């Protein structure tokens, strides 16, 4: 029943667009698994991260899509490629794993994916049976306003449909939560980034060299 209600999601262009970006993401992830050259893995990871950023648009998380593109694709991936450049004399060097170990790793990954996917589909199926009832019961709880009860399923419905949703969340909701409910985690994230910056510079300095050579840093 829930699936029938969600079938109007993301009309009219979205189904094949979703399959396009999801397919690119899955192919990129498979490329990361199957490729043995680190630079090609980085390029496949770029495709996956970009496609996931576009999928965030379908989930009404435009700001998160921008953050994903800026931080992941523009920051983390560039950092990884710098790491590849700094840590190999030959960037196309192959470090291969023996075939039995590789097959075992792929089997474990496949089993984990099947487990997670099965759990997710089972959750959606069980929620389609009684989740909608609990939500309508939740909407029935305030007895004072009859119109709220009448309108509540329609509102959540329009939010789920998300195309004409008057209440789809935007950056303003994110900002209010970030400075209200999540103010302490925000401050902790700032402190964490400072600690990471100092710590990364300290670790990557190579302190074994300057003790012996009197600060002569190569």
């Amino acid at each position, binding site marked *: 029943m829930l699936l029938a209600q969600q079938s109007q999601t993301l009309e009219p262009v979205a189904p094949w667009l979703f399959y396009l970006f999801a397919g690119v993401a899955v192919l990129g992830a498979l490329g990361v698994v199957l490729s043995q050259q680190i630079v090609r893995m980085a390029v496949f990871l770029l495709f996956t991260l970009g496609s996931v950023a576009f999928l965030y648009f379908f989930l009404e998380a435009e700001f998160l899509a921008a953050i994903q593109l800026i931080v992941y694709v523009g920051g983390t991936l560039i950092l990884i490629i710098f790491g590849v450049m700094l840590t190999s004399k030959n960037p196309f060097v192959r470090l291969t794993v023996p075939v039995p170990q590789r097959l075992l790793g792929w089997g474990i990954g*496949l089993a984990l994916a099947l487990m997670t996917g099965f759990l997710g589909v089972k959750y959606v199926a069980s929620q389609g049976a009684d989740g909608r009832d609990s939500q309508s019961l939740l909407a029935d709880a305030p007895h004072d306003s009859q119109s709220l009860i009448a309108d509540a399923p329609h509102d959540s419905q329009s939010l789920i449909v998300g195309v004409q949703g008057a209440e789809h969340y935007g950056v303003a909701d994110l900002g209010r939560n970030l400075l209200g409910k999540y103010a302490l985690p925000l401050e902790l994230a700032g402190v964490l980034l400072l600690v990471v910056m100092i710590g990364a510079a300290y670790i990557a300095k190579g302190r074994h060299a300057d003790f012996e050579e009197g600060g002569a840093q190569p």
Partner: protein
Amino acid sequence: MIGLSHFLALSAILFGCGAATILTKRNAIGILMGVELILNAANVNLVAFNLYNWAGEAVAQGAAPAVDGLMFAMFIIVLAAAEAAIALAIFLNFYNHFSTIDIERARMLRG
């Protein structure tokens, strides 16, 4: 057509690929890429659940739509960036010591 289960399936596939990447790479930076894939799978799950199952309940109670899943995803992105920076610093130090990035050579802590 496109419901919550589609996003859950995509996230499961990404998670499996990330786990297989971690298990089958000898290059330390490849393992870091696997971790990034797993964190992305978790982010997709958080954002999808927030849209389909979480935001509507707050709206049904007359409040503003809840964005807790998006907040969690944002903090996960911050943590992933910090983790990548620290991990690459450790890898650079490792490369300075051993002149390789092969994790099979990291045996100094082995008893």
